[in-house]
């Protein structure tokens, strides 16, 4: 469902990763590993279409991608329900059952009328992840989704990912340092590190 072929991506005018290739079938997840600064975020953002690739191709069904990072896009002046409903509406899904399911799966039902600004960091994170449940996107690019979550919440997220998202035929590419407890292959990005002398970024023209 997601195919990446010979992908090269750059950060700040300098190539960081080269010739990354992998496939993810429907219903499967892929965990990205590698030391800090290797380019996990750059790779995820490139795949989500937020920045152009230097070379290579990324294919997945059109209008199916969603990206999530530590910045959740939660408005502190809106309630939990309003925050979720906004993202559902933007994606053209106004069916309230999806919203209810997401609230329930991420243990937010009791907090539904609370303002975003009054939530704790972990609760906010859960709300940010619950967004993924209401937008109905099949291809998820998740950058450190479990930061500031406690063990219980990590399990909630892993359960949702396994039983709702992947079981429904979705795919996910996740950059994370912890063990989510889901059955997914891991991809270490260290071998794809770009050679600093190889060029490729926009700095190349000046070297």
């Amino acid at each position, binding site marked *: 469902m997601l195919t990446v072929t010979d992908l090269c991506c750059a950060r*700040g005018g300098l190539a960081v990763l080269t010739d990354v290739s992998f496939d993810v079938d429907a219903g499967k997840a892929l965990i990205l590993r590698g030391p800090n600064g290797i380019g996990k975020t750059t790779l995820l953002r490139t795949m989500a279409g937020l920045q152009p690739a230097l070379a290579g191709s990324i294919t997945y069904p059109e209008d199916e991608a969603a990206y999530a990072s530590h910045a959740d896009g939660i408005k502190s002046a809106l309630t939990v329900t309003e925050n979720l409903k906004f993202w559902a509406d933007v994606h053209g899904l106004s069916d309230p059952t999806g919203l209810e399911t997401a609230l329930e799966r991420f243990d937010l039902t009791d907090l539904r009328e609370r303002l975003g600004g009054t939530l704790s960091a972990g609760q906010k994170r859960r709300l940010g992840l619950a967004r993924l449940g209401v937008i109905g996107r099949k291809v998820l690019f998740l950058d450190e989704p479990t930061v500031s979550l406690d063990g219980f919440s990590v399990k909630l997220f892993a359960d949702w990912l396994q039983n709702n998202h992947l079981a429904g035929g979705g795919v996910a590419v996740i950059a994370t340092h912890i063990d989510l407890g889901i059955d997914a292959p891991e991809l270490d990005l260290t071998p794809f590190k770009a050679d600093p002398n190889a060029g490729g970024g926009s700095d190349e023209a000046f*070297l």
Partner: protein
Amino acid sequence: MSIWKYANPTKFMGWTAPVLPWLFGLAALCLGVGLVWGFFFTPDDFRQGATVKIIYLHVPAALMAINAWIMMLVASLIWYIRRHHVSALAARAAAPIGMVMTLIALFTGAIWGKPIWGTYWEFDPRLTSFLILFLFYLGYMALWEAIEDPDTAADLTSVLCMVGSIFAILSRYAVLFWGQGLHQGASLSLDKEENVADVFWVPLLVCMAGFVLLFIALVLMRTRTEVRARQIRALENRARAQNA
């Protein structure tokens, strides 16, 4: 063999180095001849007296003030469409020169205006247009300075230059809406009847050629500086990546 290959930064540094001294020499020659001729060997105007001789600075500066912006617009378009780095850097290099030309035109205009119109400044359409042009140069340069990443800066400033051009033209016609001001009509046109007399016209042409050459030489020199700065940055980036 395409003309674009001369836009490669390394090639650009190569061919500009020998060309620059010639350009500066020619510019100095034209300006020297034109200005001396204009200032000392033309008759005084029968109405304006010797004041008219400031035309040899005023008109070429005003011409280059506008042409510099047009050159930046073209360079921005080339960067935006074909992504030639030198083009973006040339646009950046031209902005301060264009701004100084605008200032020269405004100042010489004020000096000229005082004895002829009795005022240094008047909100006349032409004068106001140049003031607006000055503001556009200021904003464009400020945006370049504010952004750290050079590619982002080049992209954003080129969009600003394109949008700014539209609004600059709109402003030009908006100030005309106030009605005709003090400034005389065009001194130079293809219609021979409207032109200034040949005695003033020929040295003026030499001065304009001098300003054009000076502008090209300065832009090339400043672009070379910008390319060097980018090369240093690229080398530093690579060194950092190797150490990491």
